[in-house]
């Protein structure tokens, strides 16, 4: 057991980092707009494909790929907000309607991607070559970078939303839209900002994931479900709770894979989730909505 426990924990950390990057993007939009973006996974996929095109097909290098992938995701995210979310502000059923429109957006993106790039598998190069030792377990440098990068990004996000004027305007709008408008905050611009930031996180996660897994049109679909489990578990309310839940789920998933194998892990995770919800309907760390 000792020999496998450390690598398992490291792989749990890696999963947790990826989930935290995704789920924090979902949580950011939710706390600002009260919208759950089902196209988040498709934005990840888009980022990975654009990065592949720029870095491999055009041969401009991975750094350019990163910028282009994240940029494309941001543009798509802002467009989604503009075309599919903004028209429904103030609608009584806004939350439900935007679930459907973003779901449609994810179909459009996913099918569009598969029409443009075809079904052939693609893979992005790793950001860093070689291996490093993490707690005595050998990990590829790329994965180690993700494990280090995720908390740094989360910390930056926490600093941004808590300490800067434009970041705090996001929270102000989320807490009380009319009061925020009275204070002179440009509310529609803040909504675009939230969507753009969240899409940037999605794009980043997609590009990072694209060199661990094959890039396929469904790249983002699987992680999205896990990120959903994370946000149900942690509650959508705060960045800290979401990030905490991401690491809990990541580690739990890695341990379950070790104990029960790959096949039963999703089911056991889901049953655990149901149990949590039966006793705590607002999530493990959540407060009443």
């Amino acid at each position, binding site marked *: 057991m000792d020999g496998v426990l450390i690598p398992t924990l490291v792989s749990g950390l890696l999963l947790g980092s990826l989930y935290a990057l995704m789920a924090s993007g979902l949580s950011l939009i*939710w706390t600002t707009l009260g919208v*759950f973006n089902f196209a988040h996974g498709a934005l990840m996929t888009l980022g990975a494909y654009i990065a592949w095109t720029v870095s491999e097909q055009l041969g401009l290098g991975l750094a350019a790929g990163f910028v282009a992938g994240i940029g494309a995701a941001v543009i798509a995210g802002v467009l989604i907000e503009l075309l*599919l979310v903004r*028209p*429904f502000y103030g609608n009584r*059923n806004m*939350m*439900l*309607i935007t*679930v*459907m*429109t973003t*779901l*449609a*957006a*994810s*179909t*459009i993106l*996913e*099918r*569009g991607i*598969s*029409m443009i790039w075809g079904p052939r598998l693609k893979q992005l190069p790793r950001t860093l070559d070689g291996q490093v030792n993490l707690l005595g377990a050998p990990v590829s440098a790329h994965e180690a970078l993700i494990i280090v990068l995720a908390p740094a990004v989360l910390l930056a996000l926490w600093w941004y939303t808590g300490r800067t004027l434009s970041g705090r305007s996001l929270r102000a709008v989320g807490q009380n839209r009319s009061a925020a408008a009275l204070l002179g905050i440009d509310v529609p611009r803040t909504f675009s900002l939230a969507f753009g930031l969240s899409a940037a996180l999605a794009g980043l996660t997609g590009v990072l994931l694209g060199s661990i897994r094959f890039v396929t049109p469904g790249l983002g*679909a699987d992680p999205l*479900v896990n990120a*959903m*489990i994370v*946000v*149900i578990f942690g509650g*959508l309310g705060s960045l800290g709770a979401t990030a905490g839940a991401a690491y809990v789920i990541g580690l739990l998933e890695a341990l379950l894979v070790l104990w029960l194998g*790959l*096949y*039963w892990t*999703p*089911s056991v995770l*889901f049953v655990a*989730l*149901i149990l949590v*919800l*039966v006793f705590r*309907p*607002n*999530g493990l760390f959540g407060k009443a*909505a």
Partner: protein
Amino acid sequence: MTRNRSLFALAALVLLALVPAVVTDSYTRHIFIIAFIYGTVAVNWDLSLGLAGLFNFGHLAFFGIGVYTAAILTTALDLSPWLAIPAGGLTAALAALLIALPVARLQGIYVVLVTFAFGQLCMQVVLSQGDLTGGAEGLVRLPYLRIGDYSFIRDFRFGYYYVALGLLTVSVVALLLLARSPFGKSLRAVRDNPDYATARGISVARQRVLVLCASAVFTGIAGGFYAIYLRVASPEVFGFSVATLILSMVLIGGAGSILGPVFAALALTFATEAMAGIRGLEEARFIVVAVAMILVLRIAPAGAIDIFGRLLAPRRKS
């Protein structure tokens, strides 16, 4: 429902029952059969989503459970398809009971997330239990539906056509009766004003459990029939595409109207099949459906049929 509309629905049913006399090629009949199956799934989704206002996004999981129940019972246990199809309704209702336990107490977005995740989980279970479900390849060569020596595939799918139409009719009539019953009224009360409904002694949680189970029964049976009719069960039934297609039927037909989604199912199945025949549109047709769904939500939230209603309304007054 007004008398006009029930007469209209009855006329449509008579027309559909007469279709096989006119349409004799098996491809067109095939599209009708698929449309009847999708229509059954769509009206039952309308029961939970439209009528009861429950944000259920895992409805296709009930369909998929029906598909796999019939497929596994007929292949692994050699059960007759006549028993395997209704068994799909039973297992789907049991699954609905399981998912209703947490959903009964959840609010808003969490209902969406849990039901959605449930659908995805079903797909993962099917993919991972390859010994029983055939994994990604699915189960193939399921037995035909037959009475004695007569196979329902014969005479250009004559038998399947009427079984599918019968299933849709029974399901729609059951839902219409249910919608007019005190239970149906209590569902609408819970949807429109949950606090007032609670104050009048309606248990929101209990109605949610009941409506989920009720909507799963015919959906599961439709799934069982779908598997036996196509003779395959594949994990795609749990995927995004089918769910988006059927959701668009509910929305374009008008959520909460029961009859609307039936007509939308017929129209959309024919439209998407026609597009599938055009080169280059095989993938694009899903994009077209998604865009249509967004436009309907934007322009006519009560469904496309409502547009015609609104166009006719002023004339009636004058």
